[in-house]
């Protein structure tokens, strides 16, 4: 069957989304449509599938198939210490604030395969704050969470990570934080102690605690405006007064209801502090 024309195609994609929602409960209806479509297309291309209807059939029938697809739909490219300027800025701007608290609770919302979580753990350790921190890392995708929990990454990627780490003004040697095993680099277990990985769906689930720091980076760009608002509300509920919120480089809280409540600590690095009225 030849590729259907645009509009028809879009209907199929919507059907796929609905199928997922009905069958597995994952609600992607509020995700940004075009990026979602693109990801479905990528998935089909990767699996050499022409007909979207086949996708529907297979994903309904086979959960493993869906889990595979979930990877395409949710996980994005990431590195450790990605966007080193952010980490550098974080060190000078946020760490002093964290240090005024005897204990620190941190939430990585949408942590994917955990690179950012471990990067942050390394940074916190170097700044002497890890011990007093409790880190919660959540993502919608369970296999991503499992991957993150293991903390094993491709050894050849470590070089790139190390470069990023240096640019982020790391204080030690990047290789101190992992040891090589076969073809993988295993993150040092001392970094994992204070981290709790869990599955959490930003679309459907609610706030589960109060945090001093919430990181939700490069997650919301895939959501539509309503979902973004919802997520921001959730984040706002979960953040204490004068708590810190970090979003991705390409994201912003301007033109959202948060703008009046949060003041930017560093607008370039998208680090904000909750300082206004509720």
């Amino acid at each position, binding site marked *: 069957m030849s590729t259907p024309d645009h509009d028809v195609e879009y209907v199929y994609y919507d059907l796929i989304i609905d199928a997922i929602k009905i069958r597995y409960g994952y609600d992607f209806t509020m995700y940004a449509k075009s990026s979602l479509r693109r990801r479905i297309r990528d998935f089909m291309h990767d699996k050499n599938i022409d007909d979207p209807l086949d996708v529907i059939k297979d994903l309904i029938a086979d959960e493993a198939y869906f889990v595979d697809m979930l990877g395409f739909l949710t996980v994005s490219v990431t590195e450790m210490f990605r966007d080193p300027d952010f980490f550098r800025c974080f060190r000078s701007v946020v760490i002093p604030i964290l240090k*005024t608290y005897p204990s620190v609770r941190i939430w990585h919302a949408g942590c994917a395969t955990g690179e950012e979580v471990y990067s942050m753990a390394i940074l916190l350790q170097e700044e002497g704050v890890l011990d*007093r921190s409790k880190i919660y890392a959540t993502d919608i995708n369970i296999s991503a969470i499992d991957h993150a929990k293991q903390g094993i990454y491709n050894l050849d990627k470590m070089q790139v990570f190390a470069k990023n780490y240096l640019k982020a003004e790391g204080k030690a040697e990047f290789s101190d934080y992992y040891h090589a095993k076969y073809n993988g680099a295993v993150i040092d277990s001392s970094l994992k102690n204070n981290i709790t990985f869990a599955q959490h769906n930003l679309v459907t689930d609610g706030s589960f605690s109060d945090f001093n720091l919430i990181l939700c980076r490069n997650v919301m*760009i895939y959501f539509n405006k309503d979902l973004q608002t919802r997520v921001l509300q959730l984040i706002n509920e979960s953040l204490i007064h004068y708590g810190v919120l970090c979003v991705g480089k390409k994201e912003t809280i301007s033109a959202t209801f948060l703008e009046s409540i949060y003041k930017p600590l560093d607008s370039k690095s998208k680090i904000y502090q909750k300082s206004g009225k509720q």
Partner: protein
Amino acid sequence: MEESSKYDQATTTYLLLEPELVKSKFDITNAELEALRTFKEYFHEEVVPFIEDFYAWMQNLPEFGMFFTSSATLDHVKAKQIKYWQEVFSAEITPGYLKNRENIGLVHARIGLPLHSYCISMNHSAEWWKNKAIALLKDPNTKNPKKVDAAYLNRVINKLIQIDMTVVTETYHKSTQNQLIKTLDDTKQIVDDVTKVAAAVVNGDYSTRLSDSQELSRAINKMIEALSNADTENKRDAWIKNGQAELAEKLRGDLDVAQISANVINFLAVYIEAQVGTFYLLEDNKLHLIGSYAYRHRRSDTVDLNIGEGLIGQAVLEKQVMIVDNLPEDYLTISSSLGESSAKSIIIAPIVFEDRVMGVLELGTMTEFKEIHLKFVETVNESIAVALMSGNNRAKMKELLDDSRKKSDALEEQQQELEKINKNLQEQADEIRASEEELKAQSEELQAINEELEEKTQALENQKRDIEEKNKTLEHSKKMVQEKAEALQKSTKYKSEFLSNMSHELRTPLNSLLILAQSLADNEDNSLSKEQVEKAQVIYSSGQDLLNLINDILDLSKVEAGKLQVEFGAISPKMLGDTVCDRVRPLAEAKNLNFEVVYADDCPDIIVTDGRRVEQVLKNLLSNAIKFTDDKGTVSLKVSMEQDKSKFTTPKLAEERVLSFAVSDTGIGISDADQKEIFEAFQQADGSTNRNYGGTGLGLTISRQLAQLLSGEIHLHSELGKGSTFTLYLPMSSGKEGEATVELSNYGATQAAASSIPSEQFVHEATKVNSKESAVEPLVLIIEDDENFRDILITCLNERRVPCITAATAAEGMQLIKTKKPTGVILDVGLPDRNGLDLLDEIRMNPSTQNVPVHIVTGYDVKEKSMEKGAVGYVSKPVKKDELIAMLDKASSAISEPIKEVLIVEDDNHQLKSIEKLIASDSINVTCAQSVAQAEQVLHEKRIHCMVLDLGLPDGNGKGLLEKISKDKDVVLPAIIVHTAKSLTEEEEKELAEYSPTIVVKTADAPQRLLDEVNLFLHKISEEPNGTSPIKRKTLSNNEIEGRKILLVDDDMRNNIALGSYLREHGLKTVTADNGELAIEYLEKEKDIDLVLMDIMMPVKDGYETIAYIRKQKQYKDLPIIALTAKAMSDERQKCINVGANDYLTKPVDLEKLFDVMKVWLYK
């Protein structure tokens, strides 16, 4: 021969010489001999042929050549033999015969003929003769007398031959033996001699020789000689070899050419016994002196020689060693410290290596050079050459090695460079890879964003459309409003025109009326009755009233049209007061009222304002007072300075000193409800109100407007039945003297129109409409059913000039809260219809009323509950006066800034002070405590809203304090912020969390957070300013240092002027001096200088001195002095501080910084 015969004789046996014995031995008879003799002739004839045959046969024998070398000898021997055989066949054995045989033996022995050869030949001969005999006998011719046979004959011959053989043999043996013995003796002798000689030779003595008689001796002599020669030869060789070895030793190692040459020449000279020597090296076809031995340069400039030049040069060409002997005396001198001599010979030896000349040696000696020296030199030539070669090679190698090392270093460097570059490239490649990844990720994100943007754009467009529509509507409305405003303006204009026309119309008949009424009242011709005069008077006064009314209306309309002229001038309040009072006095007297005028002591002489208008207002107020006061009441005017400026809203009143004109009466008073109303503009006035208070009701409105024009205010305090006081407040200077017209366009019709529509305000989703809350006048609501107490409260509030309203029930109170929006509520708990606390709850619940601060005054003991419910104050009955006052003060103070109490508990003094400085503000009152005990005390003394608590205190633990006060009923637990350097465990944190969820760890950023948290607690409801900037130094708003006097000291007046004008622009006052002396003078003259800016570099008396001098005076001990210096060195700062400056700034002065610094030091 003689010798041998001697020996022979000694040893010859008897047998051989004795014939008879021989005959018997060999058994030969005479008969036999006889027989043989018969044939003698025959045999003698055969002898010669026998000999010839014999020699022919003998020639075949190998021994023949040995013995018969010459023919002479042969002939001789042949002859002898012939004779011999003849003898044999003579057959006579005589002693002589035997003797001959003996001789033969001896001869044979002597010549050394081997016996067996003799025997062979004899056998052969015997055979021949046998044959001959046979042949003979066969021959018939032969005479055979005895008739013998051949056998018999041969037997005889054989016997004779045997005899010969035996004799010969024996003799031979003996002779040989003798010879042997002799030889042995000789040999022995020789051996002895040889032994001796050998011993000598072994000892190295080659001189001995044997006597050369013997061959052996000769041979041995030769040998000795040979040995001797060999020995000499060996010695020579050894010397040469030794020399070579030694030289080789000296040339061993890693020597350079110079060292080699030196070693060579030194060694050689010594070894070959030369006393002087030179060594030239051939370099670049030139001979260069490289070494020498005991050589003194005779001519120092001929160190280098060319090839072919001199013998040395020649040697190079010839490549041969030369010896030059017999040198002339003056050729070469060999000298030592003791003497000198001329050299006899020199050796010149070119050092050649593979046919290449490397150098030339020259050695000289006083004696002569021997062959061996020459040989030696020749021998070592090669070694030297090789050594030089090696030296050269080594040198070359070293060069090459260095070269190659350099090159290899360079290569290494390059390699490193390359490695670096490679690394860089790799890094770049990695970066590129990373960037690629990043790009990939980013492109994904960008795509997502794009999509988002698209959606947003769509949304925006929709919004835009909506906005455009709304704008259109707004435009329309605006247009409408404008039209309305215009219409209004027009109507106002018409109105005023109308009024002015009307006034004219009205005044005209009025005028007549008044004049006529007046004249009637005067009754000059007494034509009228008393009654009629009275009536006329009434007409007159009514007319007058009417006139006034008309005037007032006109004025009012003028004021509202914004056209009222105000003229400022310096007026004497006293005069003004008197003038007005004079005018109204009669009215008061007419009503039998007490009329008083009081001028307070602090009443000033001059006030700048519009006297006419003030008069108008005062007249109006006084008239009203008189009007509404009954018989026997009192009306008074009191003029004084007003101190309490808190109640004013007009800026000028707040800034300047205020004069108050208080018109009081003991009249009927005005109810609270009406108080507000009576000031309303006549447009909105309730007609009935006016009528109630009489015709001049308008006057109040006008008065109010006028007061505003004069930058003043009119306040009213009144109580029903008790009286009223209208007070006009004026600033000391309403405006600039002589200023004529004040066109106040804010006022008038446009004012009303403008306030309801926000201009140019398009609806925008994201923007906030920043509407500044207009300053609210304090208004206190008293909800108290006890009349008496209520009265007391009212009185107190009145004294404070705080407007108040009252309610006697909860319901009424609630109603009033909603409608009147009081700024403070005093609430009794025991109300008739409801418990005050319930009401409090309701107030708190209701969003529109929850902001009102409520103070509880009650006889019940409900403090805790009250505070829990959110009361801001609590006073229990019976109330003490000061408590009451405090509460009322609190209640009446402006809502926007209720004072919050903060307690800081910190034992470290420094930290305590800095936190205090940080937190203190206009709305925060800070109390400090340095111990648990102190803190407890404070908490008991007053209500604390927020407490900053350090955990480590000298008399206990902060947590202990928390536990204590939480149990203490008298203390209301404030909001707590724990501020500690201690690192807390999770347990400790949890425990503390019971009392306080806010814990701030003392770090560098803690102060900011502390401030934030304090603010958060205290301003839970009020809005927070956006972007709170970190407060680094407590600074003042500009307003607070306005008016201060600054002394500028700088020798460059331009600086003073520039700085001065800048300061003045910001409202500061300045005094300038251009030198230190002057500065001190001015300080003393102008007593109110607040701060000094002192330039350091000044002539005569420089800044340091001046500062020091100033500081010496007690009165200037605390005067802030800021040094301005062009020097930027760090010790300069210290110098300034040391000499007494409070701070310093470098020139050129950063004006903003200057201001900041000044603000700090001007803060009191």
